[in-house]
C-alpha cells in the first residue's frame, strides 16, 4: 500500500466450464508492496481465478489490466514475461538437477547456442543472496529441505523481473520454522515493492502476514477487507457463507444422552495418534452407536485423522485399543478385520474401481476380507446387491453396468453399500455428501442416523456444520492440522461456538474425560 495505484486489476471476471460456473463477476485488485490473501473453501474459485490471471484459462467475461494497460495472457510463459509469476503448492522443480539449473532451466544465458554455465551459477548465487540464502548452487536441489526448494522456486519466479508474485498454498508442507523463513522472504519482497498474492488454508498465517483479504465463495466475490478490520470469526463465516441464525434445529437423534452412550468400554480408543506433516498427535474415543462429527475447514487435517484411524496412513506413534484391548491399525486390511470401514472423500481416485460393475464394486470389500479363495456365492451377491440398490435407491438399478456410468451421487451410494455390506462396527464417512444433490444428501443423512441407532459407530466428516450438528453426539474440531477441541453436542453447542473454535482455537472444552 505504498502506492495508491493498483499494479493489477481484474474486473467482472466470469468463467464457466460445462455445467459449472466457476467464477461469476469477480473483481480483484492488487497493489504494489502488499501481501494479499485470497481466501475461500475448496471449489470457491481461487485456483480458477489464478489460472485466469496467469493465462492458463481464457476468461468468458471481464478484463484484466496490468499497470493500467489491458492485459490478456495466452499462457503462463507470457504471463511470466509480463512480470506475473506463480509458485505452486507442490514444488514444480526437478530435484535431480542442480539449484542453479532449476532457476534457469528453459532460459539459460547462452553464447552461440552453448549454455554459459559459469554465468548461470554466478547469477543464481546473486539471486539467492538477494533472498539471504547461502546455498551451494551446484548441489542437486533434492539435497535441500522442502522449504529451501520452495524458496528456490521463488528465486526462479522473481528472477523474471516479477512485479506480481502468486504463492499458491506455499506453506502446506512446511513446518513452523520453515514458514517463518518463508514469511521473512515474503516481507522482504513486499518491501521491495512486489505485489504478493497469497493463497492458504491456514488462518493464523493470513493474520500474520496479509495486509488485505479477498474472500471468494461458490465462484462469487464475497468482499475485500483490511486484515486488521476483519476478525477471524467473521472471516470463517464469510468463507462458509452461513449466517449463524439460519441453522436448522438439531434433530432428536443427536439428543441422546452422550453420557449414556459413553458408558462402558469404548469401541475404538486412540491416544497420541499423529503423523508428521499431516496431523498433530490427537486422542479420540468412539463408542458403539455414537456419531462423532469432525468439523474444520478444508485442509485442517480432517481427512488425515480418518486415514490414520483406517490404517491408510501409518501413525508415527501412540496406542489404539479396540473393545478395550490393545491393538493396531497399520493397514486398511487390518482395520477392516477390526470392523472399520472408510468412505474416502476422493470417490474417483480412492473409491470406485471404474472398470468394474456396480455389483463388483459393492462386494469388493467383503470379498477382500474373505480372501480370493472363498468367493461369495453369486446368489448371495445378488441378494446383497439387490438389497442395497433398493435401500439406497441407486439408479440405474442394473448392477451389471460399469460403475463409471453412474452419476456422482449414485457412485457415492455404491461406495456406502460396499461398506454397509461388510457390516462395520465403525464407519468413517469423509465428506459423504459433497458434490451430490440435495435429495441424495438427505437420504445419506437419514441413513447415518438409522445406522447409529442400530448400534454402529460413525465418524462423520463434513465441511457443512449444520450437517455435523444435526447428526453428531460429539464434535471434534480440527484447526491447522490439530484437534483443538472435543465438544459434546448438547443444547449449548451451536454453529456459532464451533466456528469460534475453528477461528480462535482457544475454546478448549473436553467432552471426553
Amino acid at each position, binding site marked *: 500500500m505504498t502506492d495508491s495505484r493498483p499494479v493489477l486489476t481484474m474486473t467482472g471476471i466470469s468463467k464457466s466450464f460445462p455445467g459449472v460456473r466457476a467464477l461469476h463477476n469477480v473483481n480483484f485488485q492488487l497493489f504494489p508492496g502488499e501481501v494479499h490473501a485470497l481466501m475461500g473453501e475448496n471449489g470457491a474459485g481461487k485456483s480458477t481465478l489464478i489460472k485466469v490471471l496467469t493465462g492458463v484459462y481464457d476468461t468468458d467475461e471481464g478484463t484484466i489490466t496490468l499497470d493500467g494497460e489491458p492485459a490478456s495472457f495466452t499462457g503462463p510463459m507470457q504471463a511470466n514475461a509480463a512480470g506475473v509469476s506463480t509458485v505452486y503448492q507442490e514444488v514444480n522443480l526437478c530435484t535431480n538437477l542442480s539449484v542453479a539449473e532449476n532457476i534457469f532451466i528453459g532460459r539459460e544465458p547462452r553464447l552461440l547456442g552453448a549454455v554459459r554455465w559459469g554465468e548461470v551459477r554466478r547469477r543464481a548465487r546473486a539471486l539467492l543472496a538477494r533472498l539471504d540464502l547461502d546455498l551451494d548452487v551446484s548441489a542437486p536441489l533434492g539435497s535441500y529441505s522442502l522449504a529451501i526448494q520452495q524458496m528456490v522456486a521463488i528465486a526462479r519466479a522473481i528472477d523474471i523481473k516479477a512485479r506480481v508474485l502468486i504463492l499458491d498454498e506455499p506453506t502446506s508442507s512446511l513446518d513452523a520454522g520453515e514458514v517463518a523463513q518463508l514469511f521473512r522472504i515474503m516481507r522482504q519482497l513486499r518491501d521491495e515493492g512486489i505485489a504478493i498474492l497469497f493463497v492458504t488454508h491456514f488462518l493464523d498465517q493470513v493474520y500474520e502476514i496479509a495486509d488485505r483479504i479477498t474472500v471468494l465463495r461458490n465462484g462469487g466475490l464475497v468482499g475485500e477487507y483490511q486484515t486488521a478490520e476483519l476478525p477471524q470469526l467473521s472471516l470463517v463465516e464469510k468463507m462458509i457463507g452461513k449466517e449463524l441464525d439460519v441453522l436448522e434445529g438439531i434433530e432428536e437423534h443427536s439428543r441422546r444422552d452422550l453420557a449414556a452412550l459413553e458408558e462402558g468400554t469404548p469401541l475404538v480408543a486412540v491416544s497420541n495418534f499423529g503423523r508428521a506433516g499431516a496431523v498433530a498427535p490427537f486422542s479420540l474415543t468412539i463408542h458403539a452407536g455414537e456419531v462423532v462429527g469432525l468439523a474444520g475447514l478444508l485442509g485442517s487435517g480432517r481427512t488425515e485423522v480418518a486415514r490414520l484411524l483406517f490404517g491408510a496412513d501409518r501413525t508415527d506413534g501412540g496406542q489404539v485399543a479396540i473393545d478395550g484391548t490393545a491393538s493396531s491399525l497399520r493397514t486398511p486390511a487390518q482395520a477392516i478385520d477390526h470392523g472399520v470401514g472408510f468412505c474416502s472423500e476422493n470417490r474417483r481416485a480412492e473409491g470406485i474401481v471404474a472398470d*468394474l460393475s456396480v455389483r463388483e464394486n459393492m462386494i*469388493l470389500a467383503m470379498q477382500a476380507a474373505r480372501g480370493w479363495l472363498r468367493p461369495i456365492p453369486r446368489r448371495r451377491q445378488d441378494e446383497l446387491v439387490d438389497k442395497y440398490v433398493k435401500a439406497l435407491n441407486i439408479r440405474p438399478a442394473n448392477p451389471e453396468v460399469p460403475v463409471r456410468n453412474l452419476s456422482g451421487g449414485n457412485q457415492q451410494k455404491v461406495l456406502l453399500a460396499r461398506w454397509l455390506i461388510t457390516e462395520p462396527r465403525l464407519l468413517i464417512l469423509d465428506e459423504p455428501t459433497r458434490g451430490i444433490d440435495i435429495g441424495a444428501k438427505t437420504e445419506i443423512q437419514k441413513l447415518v442416523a438409522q445406522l447409529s441407532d442400530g448400534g454402529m459407530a460413525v465418524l462423520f466428516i463434513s465441511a457443512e456444520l449444520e450437517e455435523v450438528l444435526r447428526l453428531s453426539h460429539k464434535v471434534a474440531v480440527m484447526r491447522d492440522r490439530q484437534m483443538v477441541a472435543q465438544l459434546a453436542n448438547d443444547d449449548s453447542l451451536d454453529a456459532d461456538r464451533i466456528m469460534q473454535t475453528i477461528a480462535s482455537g482457544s475454546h478448549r472444552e473436553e467432552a471426553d474425560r
Partner: protein
Amino acid sequence: MNDTMSRYRTMTGHRLFWPAAVLFVMLAANTIYRPGFLSIELKDGHLYGTPIDILRLSAPLILVALGMTLVISTGGIDLSVGSLCAISGAIACMYISKQPDQNSVGVVVTALAMAMGVSLVLGAWNGVLVAVIGIQPIIATLILMVAGRGLAQLITEGQIITINSEPYRAIGLGHALTLPLAIFIALAAALLVAAFTRRTALGMIIESVGGNATASRLAGIRSGRVIFLAYVISAACAAVAGFMMTANVSSADGNAAGLWVELDAILAVVIGGTSLAGGRFFLSGTIIGALIIQTLTTTVYAMDISPQTSLLFKAVVVIAVCLIQAPAFRARFSRRRRHAPPPAAIADKPKEQVPA
C-alpha cells in the same frame, strides 16, 4: 432398417467381434489364395490339414499368453516368459538325456516335475521383485529375461541337447481323439486358468488391483499377494509352453527356445482386448489373439513370402489389426464415411438416465 442397424451395433460392439472378424478375414484370404487351405483329411486315425496345424502350433503361444493376460491385468508385464520356456525345456531335456531309459514314463514325469518346480521358483522371484520389493514390472522381469537365457545355457552346457523320448515327444506331436495332444493341453490350461480366476474371486480382485490400486488397497485388498500369484501363474504357463516347444523338436536349445515369444504373447493379449494399463481381462480374446498371430505366421509360409520380407509383412498386418481394434480410429474412419447423411443419422448410444 433401424432394427438391423441396432443389431449391427450390438454385434460390432461385442468385445470379441473385431478380433474374430480379423481371424475370419485372414482365413478367408488364405482360402482364396489357396483353395485347399481349409481342407482337413483323416490319415491313420489322425486329422491333418492347415487349420489343425495352426491350432497345434499356436498351443505354446496360447499358454504363454494366458499367463501374460493375468500379469497385464494387474497393470504389470512379464518379459521373462521366453527365457522361462527355454529353462523349463532345458531342465526337462537335460534330465531325460541323462537317464538310461529315455522312454520310461516315470522319467518323463520326474523331468516335468523338476522343470515345473524350478519355473515356479523363478516365477516367485519375479513376483517378489514386483509385489514385495516394488520394482517396476518391466525392469523386474527384464532381469530374468536376460539372465534366464544364460541360465538355460548353463543347464545345457552351451550345447543343443537332443533326446529320444517318445513320451516327451508326445507333448508336442502326440495325438488323442484324432487331434494333436497339444491342442488339448492348451485347452485344458485355458479352462484351468479360467476356473482359477472366475470360479474364485481371484479374477475380480486382479481386475480391481489393475484398475485402481489405491481404491483396492482402501477396500482392504492385500494386492501384493494377487500380484505375486499372477507372476507365478505366468511362469507355470511358460513352463508348459517350454515343454511343448522342446518336445516338438525333441531337443533343447537354450538360445532359440521361446525366443521373442513374450512379444507375441503381449500382442495376443492386446489384440484380445485387455488393456496394457491393467483392469478388465479377457481370456477368450487372448486365445483368439494368439490364433491370429499363428495364422499370420502360417500365412507368411503358405504364401511363399520371402523370408526377407516376411517380418515386414507381419508388421504391416499387426499395425492394421491394432488400428481396426482401436475405437478412436474406427470412430474417425466412420465419421468421415458418414459425411453424406445429416448428423441426425448418427444415432448416439442411448444415454442412460441417471438421476442422482
